[in-house]
């Protein structure tokens, strides 16, 4: 058993102090990173409760229900930021990336603390697959939200639609790696493939937007 709250305090205190010395994008990124870690802890609480209520086992909860809970918890700070500050596209992406990496970092810390870090293969898989999966789902979500805003279809239905894309991506990964075999390797490749597809698309799109923007 690990004390996740204690781990969170240990990691967040220097970052919170760092916020005082940072400004602009760096400050925004660190704040969203902290929000991502807090979202991870809250998702763990909710997940534990849902596991008890649903009657599904720990494994089935992790495969089928965790993606729903975790993506909702990650969406909430992004939505809060989007509605309160009406950020630019690049700022929204920055916050989404911060939340995704914060979530992944804290989750990885807890897993490594509870399962050990002796196996390099295991650590590599956790870092480059699970961590990237949280990041990719957040980038996809922020692009989806941004498109909804751009086409003026930013409604509850639209938000649920964008959220369902992130949830299904996450759940597909969980399902693929749930059984040993060739599907596991497909699952491991999925987040990296998602990152490779999203990276040029996102930046080409944001670059075009910046070009179109009239000079200040």
């Amino acid at each position, binding site marked *: 058993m690990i004390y996740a709250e204690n781990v969170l305090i240990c990691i967040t205190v220097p970052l919170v102090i760092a916020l005082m010395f940072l400004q602009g994008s760096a400050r925004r990124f660190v704040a969203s990173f902290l929000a991502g870690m807090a979202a991870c802890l809250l998702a763990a609480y909710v997940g534990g409760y849902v596991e008890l209520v649903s009657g599904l086992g720990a494994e089935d909860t992790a495969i089928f229900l965790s993606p729903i809970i975790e993506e909702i918890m990650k969406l909430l700070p992004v939505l809060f930021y989007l509605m309160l500050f009406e950020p630019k596209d690049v700022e929204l992406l920055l916050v989404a990336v911060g939340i995704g990496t914060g979530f992944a970092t804290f989750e990885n810390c807890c897993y490594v603390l509870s399962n050990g870090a002796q196996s390099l293969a295991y650590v590599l898989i956790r870092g480059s697959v699970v961590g990237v999966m949280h990041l990719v789902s957040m980038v996809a979500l922020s692009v989806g939200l941004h498109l*909804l805003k751009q086409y003026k279809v930013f409604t509850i239905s639209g938000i649920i*639609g964008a959220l369902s894309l992130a949830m299904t991506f996450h759940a597909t990964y969980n399902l693929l790696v749930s059984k040993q075999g060739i*599907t596991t390797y497909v699952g491991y490749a999925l987040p990296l493939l998602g990152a490779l597809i999203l990276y040029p698309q996102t930046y080409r799109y944001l670059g075009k937007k910046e070009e179109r923007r009239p000079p200040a």
Partner: protein
Amino acid sequence: MGYLTIMEAFLLSLQAAIVIPIVISTAGLMKKGRNGIFPAFFTFAMMSMFLSALYCLIFCIVRPEERMPFAVDEIAECAMLLLVSAGLEALSSKRKKWMPRAFLFTILYMSASIALWIAWSGEWVQDILFGLPYVYLAYLLIRGLEYVRAWDTDGERIFAAVMSTVILLMQTVMLLITSETAQNFLNLGSYAIAHGITAWLLWKNYRSLRDKSYGEKTLYLSITVFLWTILVTYVSDGIYYNVALAINTMTIPIIWIAVKRLRGEADGAEEGMENP
């Protein structure tokens, strides 16, 4: 892996393969403006549908003999219906007229359907919660079909309402009787009526497309047959489920044609305004 699972996996991969080019095509139709908003919602809806089909396909492969618990595919389906509904709302924004008759029929019909889903699955919270988008879309469609005058006669409308209710009654009686012969008879009868209605709606869609009816009418008719075939999959089991799934997949390109026509009409109208 049984032949039914293999067939389902094939149909789901076919559905995913059909949806990908549709997403790419409709993404190009996304524009601001009244008729341009529907393609935007529709593109997102098809993305949700693609991921839902992909998830179900992977489940079929990874866990072939298991019953899927509550999972994200239901949320994705729900999101797809909500996105289509939001698109229809945006399309008919200028004539938001309350239609009590359509509302009452939708509530009664869909409540009975949801009650049957609960009786079959026992998952009452899930069925009620995820039944709500069906109620919403069904109401918008029934109301929209009136707006666009999709029914040629009053008799057609009454025929559709009566026959769809007969299916529900047959399915309800099936739950109450114990005779297997009678159950099989009622089951086959309800499949025959359900697919008969599907064939009739497909015929209406074909006529609407052939006669170059205006885009909105074609759109409402195509989404109606799409929703109807989803509901048919829920009352179907075994091989009948796969047949219903195949027909449901066939209806997606019809919606795509209707969306393209709708967008084409909007472009034509804009050009007409620029060059009077």
